[in-house]
């Protein structure tokens, strides 16, 4: 048999091992379960307190919104879509990295994903939770928001299935549900680990219920692995479809600057771009705090930075192409819309967007910079600032200069726009901190499969390799 350890562990020649240090099965279990089993560190309480306070800011802002109405926001005529829609698109976009990592990279057998997928999927769920709040409160009369679902009612009316806004309801809520089911499926074996390790009865019961009696038999793994593969398969088109549908909210309308066919791919690239930046921001902090640098290595981070470089360049290309098409169309209204973006009253926002999204990722051409933790941390935050401004530029510049100059107006947010957005970070981090405190942030069962000793032919092959080396 002429197999090498490389072939068995599925790594290409010349590639560094997926995990650092000398890892054992039980070492991985102890490391990851240990994070949730030991006493809550004081810094967690501090962070959780801060996140919860911000979350209360969100609750308060929404409460006042319900009491007073959307007039508390900076919306005016013609700018009817302000920060709420910008925040919605921004948060949904961030979610896309998790699905890409969990689904597409799984199908492409990128085994380095095992260290980061649980973490990224959790980020997806929490980002979509934040995203879903904004369209719900933006409808104004939030108590009738269920009208978006086809529920028989006393008016015998149905939702308008020909509207992109309704497509969005279905696309985003399906996205959330499918991501949740995928995430839970991945968690079952790890919940069983926590059940088996639990020392307190109450913990054993709670983990026991959620682990549904998992006993790791191969008769179970057989169905489990296929279910996981299928969930990855059906989530893969979601990575592309969800943000495409979000982009049709704009592209199907007739506003200059929105009515373009480049929107779906451009939105998807931007979504993955900002999502990976968010994964970098969060993992850089978490791996340092919890000492899991051997499980999430610099190599993992470097690979993500390469994705950022790729998608960032696609976004940059789209910015250029929008201008080219505006010029090439020969349509003066379209040309005005784009000149207005770059040189009009919101030029400041446009140039923040270009410098953060196009210039910053170019740093990652250099290996030294894309493997430097401080550089990637700062870059990832700048990228998400840039991506927020991208949505701001799209929404606001086109609306504030619409068809008749007499209708034009300048839009600026009020304190309530800002507090709702800042508060949404409170929700995001509250959920995230609860996740890293109570659930395993790295998939133990999956990480174990990438160890060389997980292969049933490991010993024979390792001996053969040894033999070749000495022979």
């Amino acid at each position, binding site marked *: 048999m002429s197999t090498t350890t490389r072939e068995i562990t599925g790594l290409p020649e010349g590639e560094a091992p997926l995990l650092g240090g000398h890892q*054992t*099965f*039980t070492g991985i*279990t102890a490391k990851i379960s240990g994070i949730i089993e030991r006493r809550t560190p004081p810094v967690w309480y501090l962070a959780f307190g801060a996140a919860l306070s911000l979350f209360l800011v969100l609750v308060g802002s929404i409460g006042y919104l319900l009491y007073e109405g959307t007039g508390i926001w900076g919306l005016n005529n013609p700018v009817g879509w302000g920060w709420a829609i910008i925040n919605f698109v921004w948060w949904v976009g961030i979610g896309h990295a998790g699905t890409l990592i969990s689904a597409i990279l799984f199908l492409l057998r990128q085994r380095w994903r095992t260290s980061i997928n649980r973490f990224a999927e959790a980020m997806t769920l929490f980002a979509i939770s934040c995203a879903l709040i904004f369209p719900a409160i933006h409808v104004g009369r939030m108590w009738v928001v269920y009208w978006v679902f*086809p529920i028989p009612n006393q008016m*015998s*009316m*149905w*939702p*308008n*299935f*020909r509207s*992109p806004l309704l*497509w969005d309801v*279905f*696309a985003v809520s*399906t996205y959330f*549900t*499918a991501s949740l*089911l*995928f995430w839970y*499926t991945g968690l079952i*074996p790890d919940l069983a*680990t926590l*059940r*088996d*390790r639990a020392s307190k009865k109450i913990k054993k019961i709670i983990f*026991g*219920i959620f682990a*549904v*009696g*998992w*006993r*790791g*038999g*191969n*008769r*179970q*793994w*057989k*169905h*489990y692995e*296929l*279910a996981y593969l*299928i*969930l990855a398969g*059906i*989530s893969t088109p979601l990575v592309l*479809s969800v943000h495409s549908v979000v982009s*049709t909210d704009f592209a199907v309308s007739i506003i200059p600057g929105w009515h373009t066919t480049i929107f779906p791919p451009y939105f998807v690239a931007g979504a993955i771009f900002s999502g990976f930046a968010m994964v970098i921001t969060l993992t850089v902090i978490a791996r340092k705090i919890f000492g899991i640098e051997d499980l999430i290595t610099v190599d993992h981070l470097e690979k993500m930075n390469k994705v950022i470089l790729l998608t960032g360049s696609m976004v940059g290309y789209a910015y250029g192409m929008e201008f080219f098409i505006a010029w090439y169309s020969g349509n003066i209204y379209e040309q005005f819309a784009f000149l207005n973006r770059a040189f009009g009253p919101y030029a400041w926002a446009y140039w923040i967007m270009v410098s953060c999204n196009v210039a910053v990722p170019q740093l990652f051409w250099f290996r030294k910079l894309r493997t430097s933790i401080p550089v990637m941390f700062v870059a990832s935050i700048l990228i998400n600032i840039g991506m927020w401004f991208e949505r701001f530029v799209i929404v606001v510049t086109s609306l504030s200069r619409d068809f008749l100059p007499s209708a034009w107006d300048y839009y600026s947010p009020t304190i309530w726009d800002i507090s709702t957005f800042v508060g949404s970070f409170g929700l995001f981090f509250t959920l995230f901190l609860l996740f890293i405190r109570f659930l395993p942030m790295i998939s133990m*069962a999956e990480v*174990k*499969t990438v160890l060389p*000793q*997980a*292969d*049933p*032919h*490991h*010993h024979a092959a390792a001996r053969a390799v040894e033999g070749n080396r000495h022979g």
Partner: protein
Amino acid sequence: MDRVVTGQVKGVLARFDDPGSLHKAAVKIREAGFSKFDCHSPFPIHGMDAAMGLKRSPLGWIVGLAAIVGTTSALALQWWTSSVDYPLVISGKPFFSFQAYVPVTFALGVLLSAFAALIAMLALNGLPRLFHPVFYSRQFEKVTDDAFFVSIEAEDPLFEVDKTRAFLEAIGGKNVEVLQKS
């Protein structure tokens, strides 16, 4: 269901050192003619289905069916609400404009498939089942950490406590244990 009697033998459990020896044991148990046995491991082991002689999971067909039900019912819902129950002209589009119905049809197909994948996986595995005789064993707690086990159930036609024990020991099983309520 019968009441569990203390001391009633439910099966035999044996521990193996690593995925390789578990794989070899699975082949031997299958060749010995056992049918109600399972190989437990902290993670799925490559090639184990063939070693145990298991057929491919039928899950794909179930999810495929769910996808068809999801997409057709979504299309039917949109057609019925917009063209039959309350027809409205929207931007001059036909009542049944299937192009506009694609996103929702797709989303509901995915939604139903995702539910089907998880629920059918659990159903095929007989889960949730919070208790199982293998949990009588204390050492079995390590199965979700780094231990590899084989269990042969008492319901297997070839099962005889002493012989099965001896067989598992002969093929390299360690800490062989009879599963019964203590």
